[in-house]
C-alpha cells in the first residue's frame, strides 16, 4: 500500500462529492432532518421523551450505514463500468490503496455528517447521552465505514446501478429488522437471535445505545462492553474490505 496513492484516491472522491452539490447537501442535511422528524413524531404522543431516547441513538447508527452503503455501491460500480478502475489497477495502485482511499473519504464525510446529526440531536432536540459525545460520532464513523465496506463488496455482484440499489433491501433491511430495534434480540426466536448475533448492524446499534444510555469508567465515559461491540463492527468492516479487495481483479476474461 502507498500513502500517496491512498490519499490521492480519497482526495479525488471528496472532490467528486464536492462537485455534486445536491448529493453533498443531501448527505449533510438529510440525517439532521430525519432525526428531527423522529423527535417531532414522538413529541405529542410521548411527552416523557422515552421514545426518542430509545430510538434516536439507533437511528444515528443506521443513517451513516445505509447512506454510505448506497453511495459506495453505486460509485464503485460506476468506477468498474467506466474503465477507470481497470486503468487505476493497471497503474501502480494497490487494491488496498483503492479501498483505503474510499474508506478514508467516506469516513471523513461520515464524521461531518454524524457530527452535525449529533449536534442537532443533543443541543436542539435534547437527546440524553450518558457517555462522551465524541464516542457517539466515533461509533457513527465506524458504522459508515462498515456501510462502505459492504457497499464495495456487493458492487462486485451487480451488473448495473439498478441491481446495486436492489442489494439494499437484500443486505441492509434484514439487518435493520434483526438488530433489536423492533423486538429485543433476546426475545426473538432462538434461530433469529442466533442470526442477529452474526450480523454487524446488531453490534453497531448495541454500541450506539450503550453510549447513549450507560455511562462507565472506560475511555469516553462509557461501559467497556461498548468498545467490545464496536470492536466487532470494526472487525466486520475490515473483513468486508478484505473480501472487497478479493473482488477487484487486475486481469479479467
Amino acid at each position, binding site marked *: 500500500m502507498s500513502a500517496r496513492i491512498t490519499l490521492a484516491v480519497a482526495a479525488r472522491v471528496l472532490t467528486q462529492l464536492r462537485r455534486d452539490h445536491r448529493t453533498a447537501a443531501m448527505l449533510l442535511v438529510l440525517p439532521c432532518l430525519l432525526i428531527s422528524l423522529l423527535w417531532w413524531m414522538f413529541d405529542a404522543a410521548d411527552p416523557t421523551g422515552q421514545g426518542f431516547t430509545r430510538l434516536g441513538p439507533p437511528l444515528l447508527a443506521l443513517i451513516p450505514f445505509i447512506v454510505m452503503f448506497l453511495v459506495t455501491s453505486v460509485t464503485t460500480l460506476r468506477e468498474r463500468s467506466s474503465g477507470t478502475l481497470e486503468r487505476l489497477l493497471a497503474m501502480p495502485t494497490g487494491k488496498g490503496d483503492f479501498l483505503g482511499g474510499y474508506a478514508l473519504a467516506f469516513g471523513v464525510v461520515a464524521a461531518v455528517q454524524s457530527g452535525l446529526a449529533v449536534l442537532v440531536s443533543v443541543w436542539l432536540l435534547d437527546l440524553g447521552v450518558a457517555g462522551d459525545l465524541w464516542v457517539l460520532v466515533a461509533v457513527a464513523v465506524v458504522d459508515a465505514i462498515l456501510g462502505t465496506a459492504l457497499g464495495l463488496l456487493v458492487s462486485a455482484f451487480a451488473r448495473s446501478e439498478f441491481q446495486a440499489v436492489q442489494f439494499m433491501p437484500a443486505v441492509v433491511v434484514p439487518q435493520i429488522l434483526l438488530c433489536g430495534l423492533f423486538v429485543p434480540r433476546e426475545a426473538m426466536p432462538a434461530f433469529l437471535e442466533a442470526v442477529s448475533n452474526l450480523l454487524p448492524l446488531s453490534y453497531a446499534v448495541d454500541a450506539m445505545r450503550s453510549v447513549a444510555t450507560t455511562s462507565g469508567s472506560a475511555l469516553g465515559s462509557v461501559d467497556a462492553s461498548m468498545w467490545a461491540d464496536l470492536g466487532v463492527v470494526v472487525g466486520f468492516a475490515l473483513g468486508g474490505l478484505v473480501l472487497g479487495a478479493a473482488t477487484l481483479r*487486475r486481469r479479467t*476474461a
Partner: protein
Amino acid sequence: MNNAAVVEVRNLVVQRGRVRAVDRVGFSIASGEVVGLLGPSGCGKTTLMRAIVGVQVVQGGSVTVLGQPAGSRSLRDRVGYVTQAPSVYDDLTVAENLRFFARVLGASLDEVDRCMQVVALHAQRDQVVGRLSGGQRSRASLAVALLGSPDLLVLDEPTVGLDPVLRRDLWATFHDLAAAGAAVVVSSHVMDEAERCDRLLLMRDGVVLADETLPDLLQRTKADDVEGAFLELVEQEVTAA
C-alpha cells in the same frame, strides 16, 4: 535509439467464451517503432492490446514487456494504455483528472500541463469532462496515458472522430515519443491510417495476416492500398483452405 524488444508476444492464445479472440499470435516490437494494429472491429485487436498491457486473462503463450511478464508490478508506471471508451472521471475537470492520475503514478505535476498541451486540451483544462465533446473526452483519456512519458504506449483507436488537423498532430506526437525511445502500438479499423505507421500488423478473426511495412505489404500482395492488400490476403487464405 536502440532496438531492444519492448514487446515480445509468443504463441498467444486468448479464449473469450466460445470465441478464440487471439489465436497463436506472435510478434515483437522494438523501441522506437510505431506499430499499427489494423483490422475490422471484432478481429481481436482490443483483446491483443489488453494482453500486452496485462489486464487480459490469457489461455496460452506469453507476453513479455521490457523483459518482464506483461502486467508485472514494475511495469505499471512504464506502460500507458488508452481504452476505446475514455476512462476518465466525467465529474472532474480535465486538470483534476490529470492531477489525480499524475499523483497515482508519482509523476511530477509539470507533466499535467505538458500532457494537456500535447492533446490540445489546454483551453478546456477547467471544464468538467462530462461536458466535453466525444473527441475531447478521448483526448483527455489519451493525456492520462502520456503522463510520465511511458516506455510503451498502447492506444486503442485513439484518433476516432478527431479533426484531421489534430489527427495529424497526434500522429506526429506518437512519432516524437517513438523517436525518444518509446514503443507505440496504435490500433485502428480505418485502413488509411496505415501509412502513418512504421510497421503494420493486419488482423482478422484473431489471427495476424501480415506483419511488415506498408511498402512490403503492397509489393507482396500487388495491391494499391491496405484495403486491397487485406482482401487479397483473406482470399489467399480461403483458397489455401
